[in-house]
Structures are given as C-alpha cells and as structure tokens.
C-alpha cells in the first residue's frame, strides 16, 4: 500500500470534493425548483397538465443517469442545428451537460416524491381551507405544500444521497469531481486501490453529514409526530 500517494495529491482530492459538492448542490436546488411546479401539474386532474409531466418522469426515472448524460453530452452534437445554434458553446462543455442532466434527473425523482406527498394531503385540510374562503393558490401555498414538504422529507433525504452517488457519472465524462480526481491520481501513479479508497472515504463523509442534517431537519419539522416526553 502506498498511502503517501493519497496525501501527496490532497489538493486534487480537495478540488474534487469541492466540484462534487458544487454540482450536487446546484442540481439539487435547480431540480427542486423545477419539481415544485411539475409535481403540482402531475397531481392535477387535468390530463393535459399531468400527462406531459408523467412522460417526463417516466423517461428520466426509467433510464440510467449515465445514458442520460451520454445522450446530452455526446448525443446532442450529432445534430447540425444544435452545433450551429447559440446554445452550442454551453452544450459543448462537459460541465454544463452534467449540470443539465443531473438537474433534470433529480427533478424527475423529486416530482414523483412530491406528488406522492401532495396526494397524501388529508382531504379535510383542503375542505377546511375552502371553507375559510382561501383561493386554490392560497390553499396550495398555505396548506398543501407545507404539509407535502414535511411528508416528503425522509424520501427527499434518500434522493439527496442518491444524487450524490449518481454524481460520479460526472467523473466519467472527464469532469474532475471526487471520482475524477481519484481516476487522475491512479493514472499518474497506478494505485487504483489507494486512490479509490480515498474517494470512497470522502463520499462516506458527505453521506454522513447529509444523514445528520436530515436527522436534525426531521427532528425540527416532524416534531409533531414524536411521542410526548415529559
């Protein structure tokens, strides 16, 4: 074992850690912003609203993230219209493609999570809101969504961890995230075991922090579900 390889290359790993954190958090925030309107559309009784969203989540949840990223990064360049359009300087870059793919992927999963918790809203709450004279928008803003977010919390915590795990795909398309950094260290020194183990430890640390954060969040927002302790 040559652990010095890991310590000698710590700036590379640190840079990878930073890159992973940036990609994962950016796509999670953007994905959540997309998922909120999409989940409301998805749980609508109007077919023209719910069906396109169903198709979107069906596609992104039914295919591997790796293939989605390949489709965007290697695939879009096939079309001349894309290559000549103004978006090409953006879509040519691995980083923007990864961000786009991650965002759409997590948006699809979060949409379905939120749909489940929107539909689990006790009907009495909606009726009470209507009885109070709230408009539909007000009902969503004040009653349905706050409750839905609460109920979605545990599933969303899992999704955050899955997104982190999925983000290694960025390393496959040449981005220097944690996995990419480990790959690079290996390429420089031929120490697969040590470099990958270092990457594994970094990922585990992030997962540990995420689970702690969500445990705290559940303590705060699920306080009403805990048994009373005197």
């Amino acid at each position, binding site marked *: 074992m040559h652990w010095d390889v890991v310590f000698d290359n710590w700036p590379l790993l640190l840079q990878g850690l930073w890159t992973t954190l940036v990609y994962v958090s950016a796509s999670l925030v953007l994905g959540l912003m997309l998922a909120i309107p999409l989940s409301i559309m998805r749980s609508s009784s109007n077919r023209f609203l719910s069906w396109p969203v169903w198709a979107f989540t069906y596609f992104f949840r039914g295919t*591997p993230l*790796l*293939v989605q990223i390949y489709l965007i990064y*290697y695939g879009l360049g096939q079309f001349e219209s894309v290559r000549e359009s103004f978006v090409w300087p953006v879509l040519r870059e691995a980083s923007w493609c990864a961000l786009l793919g991650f965002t759409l992927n997590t948006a699809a999963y979060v949409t379905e999570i939120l749909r489940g918790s929107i539909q689990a809203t006790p009907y009495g709450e909606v009726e009470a809101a209507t009885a109070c004279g709230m408009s539909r928008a007000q009902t969503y803003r004040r009653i349905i969504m706050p409750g839905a977010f609460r109920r979605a919390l545990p599933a969303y915590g899992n999704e955050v*961890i899955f997104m982190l795990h999925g983000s290694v795909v960025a390393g496959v398309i040449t981005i220097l995230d944690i*996995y990419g950094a480990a790959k690079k260290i290996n390429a420089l020194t031929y120490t*697969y075991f040590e470099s*990958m183990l270092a990457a*594994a430890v970094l990922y585990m640390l992030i997962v540990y922090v995420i689970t702690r954060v969500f445990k705290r969040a559940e303590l705060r927002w699920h306080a009403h579900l805990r048994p009373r302790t005197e």
Partner: protein
Amino acid sequence: MLEIVGPYLPLILKGTWVTIAVSLVSLAVACLLGLLGAWAKLSHSKLANVVADAYTTLVRGVPDLVLMTIIFFGGQIGINSLVEAMGWDIYIEIDAFTAGVVSIGFIYGAYMTETFRGAILAVPKGQIEAAVACGMTRPTIFRRVLGPQMMRFALPSFGNNWLVLLKTTALVSVLGVQELVYNAFSAGRSTREMFTFMLVVCVIYLILTTISTTALRWAEHRYSVGVRRA
C-alpha cells in the same frame, strides 16, 4: 433512423442480453447476501450484528461506481496476493463480467438486507412460534412459514431495488463489460450518430423497466391473496 440502427441491431440485442444476464445474476447474488445479512442483523450474536451493520453502512455510503472499481481492480490484486501468499504460482484473472456481477451483487445485497430484515420483522411472531410448536426445523420454518409470508412485505421494496439495480448495470460499461450501453456507445461512435443510439438504449431500458413493473405488480397481487383490503 432504421437504416442507421439496422446493421447494429444484432450488436445491440447481444448487449441487451448481457445487460439482462448481469442484472439477473447480480440479483441472485444480492438476494443471497441480503438473506444472509438479514439473518445476521436479527441474530443474537453480537459479532454478526456488528459485521452486518458495518456492511450495510459502508456499502450504502459509497457510490456504486467507486465500489465497483475497488472490487474490480482491488479484488484482482487482493486475490492474487492471497494466492501468492499461499505459495501457489498461478495468476487468477477476474473477467469484467464476474467483477461486475460480484460488485453489483455485493452492493445491492446491502439494500436487500434492509428489505428482508423489515419483511421478516413484519411477519407475526405467533406464526413462527406455532411452527416451532409443530416441531419444524429452522430451514422448514423458513421454507413453509416465514418465506411465503415475508414475500408480501418484501416485494414493494424488493421491486424498487431491482429497478435501481437494473439501471446501475449501465455503469459496468465503464469497467469494460460489453453490455447494452457499451455496445451502443461503440456503435454511436463509429457512425457518429450517438444521439440515435443512446435513444435506442433508453427505449430498451424503458421496455425492461416497464416489463419489470408489470411483473412486480402481478407478483404483489399474487402474494397478497388472502389479505383483505379496506
């Protein structure tokens, strides 16, 4: 589109077959490890508890691809140094298929452990006590009483695990297993029609996941026979 994909269809279908084979064999490994893990978690032995806890925590903290790379390359080195230490003069080579199956099985074994543990706990204790009272041995209890009843509780989570596992097999293409994504990628590269081929991959995955969900729904129905629903 057909004239581009047509000549590569045998290659794509061969890849699809490999993907299905990798998935099913890994699933078998995962189920075996999952049952073993669940047994270890529920056993009274402190050592078994600790080992199983370490297994599930470690595996679920590290991304699939990182763990796969460690097992693929590390396992190769590990086995050969073990063989060398035993004084034998042979070189064992693990092919990519085996490494992929072992690592995916190992990873999803951890998820299956939690699935089976929960399902076993959900079977009423009286059932087991009655079986013991009838004088059944432990394997017989599992085969006749515990197994069939835990299926109903295990199936929803088992189904989720299977769908995630199926999509994870795309990652073994990075290790060089010539499955669906790998073959489609090389076809796309040589024809410079990557989008087309990745879209074909997506359609095949969607077909596989749709068949799976249909079969799972049937199985859930089948194993819920005799359960009254409100």
